[in-house]
């Protein structure tokens, strides 16, 4: 059953997304060196950021599952990791589409890209493990440990851009945002819009996961 909170969240995220698209394609000025291709950044960076949030969410759910053993936390971890993999896949693709005209290559073995690819592989592995290991508490325990260990890579991705001479531009520093104000506003709108969208998507996916688990349990009892 769809609740009014979900409808409000979905409506809010739609409005925020329209504003973010306006910000990215109309409000933000064209970057002088890269031209229009720089606008990819207004979707690429929010997706990367929310992907990290999703993996952090999966890690937190893993910790809670190991602590309490409640199946709800397993469902939370699965929902967050699945959306995290979706977003990080889109980050890799949009990053390649940005890199081709700017760096002259689709992919380079830059420390940040490599650590990000490892992060993506870890959580793809997490989803494969979940689908392959049946439906028992052992699977949930393995998945929880996997989600926690996988999240260790997130700070490595972040640090590699700053300390390992990575090619990716560093936008946020402790002192400033390396963007002109209209660009920063467009980016902020994107971050808000994708955050709301993540939350709406997460709630929908979580409800589906909980229902699937309940139906599977009922079907198991009936057999």
């Amino acid at each position: 059953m769809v609740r009014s909170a979900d409808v409000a969240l979905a409506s809010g995220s739609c409005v925020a997304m329209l504003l973010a698209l306006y910000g990215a394609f109309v409000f933000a000025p064209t970057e002088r060196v890269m031209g229009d291709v720089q606008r990819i950044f207004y979707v690429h960076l929010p997706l990367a950021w929310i992907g990290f949030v999703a993996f952090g969410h999966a890690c937190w759910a893993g910790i809670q599952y190991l602590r309490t053993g409640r199946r709800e936390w397993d469902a939370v971890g699965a929902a967050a990791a699945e959306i995290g993999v979706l977003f990080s896949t889109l980050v890799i693709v949009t990053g390649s589409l940005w890199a081709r005209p700017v760096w002259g290559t689709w992919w380079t073995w830059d420390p940040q890209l490599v650590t990000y690819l490892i992060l993506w592989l870890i959580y793809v592995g997490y989803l494969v493990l979940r689908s392959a290991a049946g439906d028992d508490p052992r699977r949930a325990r393995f998945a929880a440990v996997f989600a926690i260990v996988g999240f260790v890579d997130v700070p490595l991705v972040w640090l590699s851009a700053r300390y390992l001479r990575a090619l990716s531009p560093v936008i946020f520093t402790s002192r400033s945002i390396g963007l002109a104000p209209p660009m920063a506003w467009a980016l902020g709108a994107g971050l808000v819009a994708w955050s709301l969208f993540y939350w709406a998507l997460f709630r929908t996916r979580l409800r589906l996961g909980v229902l699937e688990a309940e139906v599977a349990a009922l079907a198991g009892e009936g057999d």
Partner: protein
Amino acid sequence: MTYLFWASAVVWVGIFLYLYGLVRRSRALEHEVAALRDRSDGRSGTAGGRSGAGHP
């Protein structure tokens, strides 16, 4: 501009494919619930028949 177009297209196609996948899973779940309900109704009907036969 071509790269910007493809990046936007990939993002939205990816999102819509995922949403479509969720809708399909939701429909499959509805079918499963309906099948469970039918099975449960069938069992209660059988149980009622037996008790009726045992206690006229």
